[in-house]
């Protein structure tokens, strides 16, 4: 008894240290892409892709306002700004930041500080970075919200301090403290595009599919899923059956586990739809490793460079995305315009954002409150248009 006690005491510091060290090495990606096993399926898959690649993308029209009123956002004073993504370790966010840096260079401003939590599920981390930005008294904050309404209080604190909060990628659902949301695409259209890809992959006889999302709270993903559910409720999509929505928290391992869980619990599953660049790669990787690509296809929103091997193998015949570089670029122009008082964050404002052209600030039709600048359009990628 005594001996056990003593030994267990000696264990304590070791276990504690091990736990802490494990936590410090929290960098989890490094997804090794294992393709190439499914060589026989490639030919088959390309034919199915070629047969049906009709998706409704690209009908986003930007600003119908009179061209003469548009304010051309011009270079002026250098501003200090914080560019705060959902997390820093997912490929799309550094891409967005490179767009913001490009815009800052054009506008003669110092680049924004690119800071954020390491983990996309870390809401309290975002609260901390947001609070620090307010303490620093930056001129503007550009935010991709990784939660629901949890950022209301710090965003309101920023607004109270006179700091414009321009959201991009993922808005603050209630629009509390938010100046304007720079939307990548129309959120309802995302639902339409995903439903169309599902129909195109599953074919006329339809079938069962499941959704593998990011975090349960993510404002953008939740809006897209809701929009997709609305679309597939229509008669044209009657034979598509959504069996379950699961969450991989934008972490590679969690997403693989969630994808494999779907396979186990739904024997008739034919498609995994992942509206997140992390989830779609993880699902494609899991299906490839398990040799399930023949029966279960993967689609959703993905980065062409990450998805190329799976398009080739036929595991992911079709997916969509927009340019994150452009999104960061536009977000910086909007934030700079508001911070330097060249444009006002109000309905009807039109402006020209450098190389991307003219945009208008409108009420956000996909939320109860808030303003929106709509970027668009979607790009749909497949074997014919791999995007790389």
């Amino acid at each position: 008894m005594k001996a056990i006690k003593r030994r267990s005491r000696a264990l304590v510091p070791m276990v504690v240290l091990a736990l802490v060290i494990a936590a410090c090495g929290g960098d989890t990606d490094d997804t090794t892409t294992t393709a190439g096993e499914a060589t026989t399926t490639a030919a088959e898959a390309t034919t199915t892709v070629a047969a049906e690649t009709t998706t409704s993308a690209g009908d986003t029209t930007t600003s119908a306002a009179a061209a003469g009123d548009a304010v051309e956002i011009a270079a002026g004073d250098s501003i200090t700004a914080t560019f705060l993504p959902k997390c820093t370790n997912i490929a799309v966010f550094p891409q967005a930041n490179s767009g913001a840096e490009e815009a800052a260079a054009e506008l003669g401003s110092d680049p924004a500080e690119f800071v954020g939590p390491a983990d996309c599920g870390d809401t309290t981390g975002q609260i901390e970075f947001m609070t620090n930005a307010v303490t620093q008294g930056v001129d503007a904050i550009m935010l991709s919200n990784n939660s629901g309404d949890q950022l209301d209080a710090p965003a309101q604190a920023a607004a109270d301090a006179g700091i414009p909060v321009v959201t991009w990628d993922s808005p603050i659902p209630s629009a509390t403290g938010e100046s304007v949301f720079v939307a990548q695409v129309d959120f309802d259209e995302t639902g339409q595009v995903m439903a169309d890809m599902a129909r195109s992959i599953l074919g006329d006889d339809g079938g069962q599919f499941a959704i593998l999302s990011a975090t349960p709270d993510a404002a953008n993903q939740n809006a897209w899923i809701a929009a997709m559910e609305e679309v597939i409720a229509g008669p044209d999509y009657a034979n598509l059956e959504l069996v379950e929505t699961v969450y991989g928290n934008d972490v590679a391992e969690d997403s693989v586990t969630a994808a494999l869980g779907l396979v186990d619990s739904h024997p008739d599953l034919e498609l995994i739809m992942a509206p997140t660049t992390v989830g779609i790669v993880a699902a494609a990787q899991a299906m490839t490793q398990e040799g399930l690509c023949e029966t279960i296809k993967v689609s959703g929103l993905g980065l062409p460079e990450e998805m190329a091997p799976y398009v080739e193998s036929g595991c992911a015949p079709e997916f969509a995305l927009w340019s994150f570089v452009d999104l960061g670029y536009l977000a910086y122009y909007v934030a700079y315009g508001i911070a330097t008082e060249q444009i006002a964050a109000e309905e009807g404002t039109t402006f020209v954002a450098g190389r991307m052209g003219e945009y208008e600030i409108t009420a956000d039709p996909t939320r109860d409150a808030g303003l929106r600048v709509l970027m668009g359009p979607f790009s749909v990628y497949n074997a014919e248009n791999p995007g790389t």
Partner: protein
Amino acid sequence: MRDWASKHRWESLLLVVLLATILVNVSLSPFYLGFGNFVNLFWLSIEKVIVVVVMTFVIINGEIDLSVASVMGFSAAVTATLYDGGQVPFALAIVIGITAGAIAGLLQGLVITRFGLPSLVVTLAGLIGFRGAARVLLEDRSVGDFPEWFESIGQRTLVGPFPVALILFFVGLALAWVILERSAFGRKVYVIGNSADVARFSGIEVGSVKLRLFIASGTVAGLAGILFAARVGAVQGTLGETYELDIITMVLLGGVSIFGGSGSMLGVVLALFTVLNIRNGLGLANIDGITQTGVIGLLLIGSVLVPNLAQKYRLRRPRAEAVAHGPP
């Protein structure tokens, strides 16, 4: 002054580190020195620092509670589930949530004291079990839209610039200091931590003291979970995940021996100030989260290594000074 420093080697070292941190922060960022930032620095980690206070007791007593972060999540999940069901008034749901934390502590304490199992194993099981329970209750949902008054507890200020949770922490800290270093109960905690056998022979009710500490730990963790929910405005099954590491880090850095029996509230408070100031300073200097965690990890390894090396050095010289144990 020199007398105090020689009696409180670790605390003196921490004070130096803290002052150095503050100086570096001031030079790194012009925004650091401000009252608002001082409040924010606590406010952003308030749930952790509240649990640190009670963890100090547990570790000095020669035990450990790895389950605190999971109990935080469990209590918050119980409250959120009851509230979400719409049947229970929210205030009652909070009371039940905190009680659930207390019961979690009681159960673990009973297993530890009655069956003589090591707390490391029992609370490791608790870490897994109560996190599992929280996730079963909430699944993938996020419960929010709490009443206005509740969110204002976490987000708005009560007296001057101080949020409610911050006031709670300082009151709790003062109370804890008195209990640990000025009461008979506190004495017993140290004696048991030094040697449970000696304590037993001296007629100290070892099991009862330990049990009370685990109940306190569960209750405070439950309260911290509720305060977390109030600050952030939403509860998920993952609430507070991995916080036990930060909490234990701060206690150990405070000079509390992982083997029990020694350490002081002053040391822990200094450690807590140091960690919060390092995080805050790195944050204001726009240094990312991964690096921040790395720096704190290095600090912990140092805090375990330095006293051990110092002791070895002292033991090698025959005329060793007595190693200071216990409070002043």
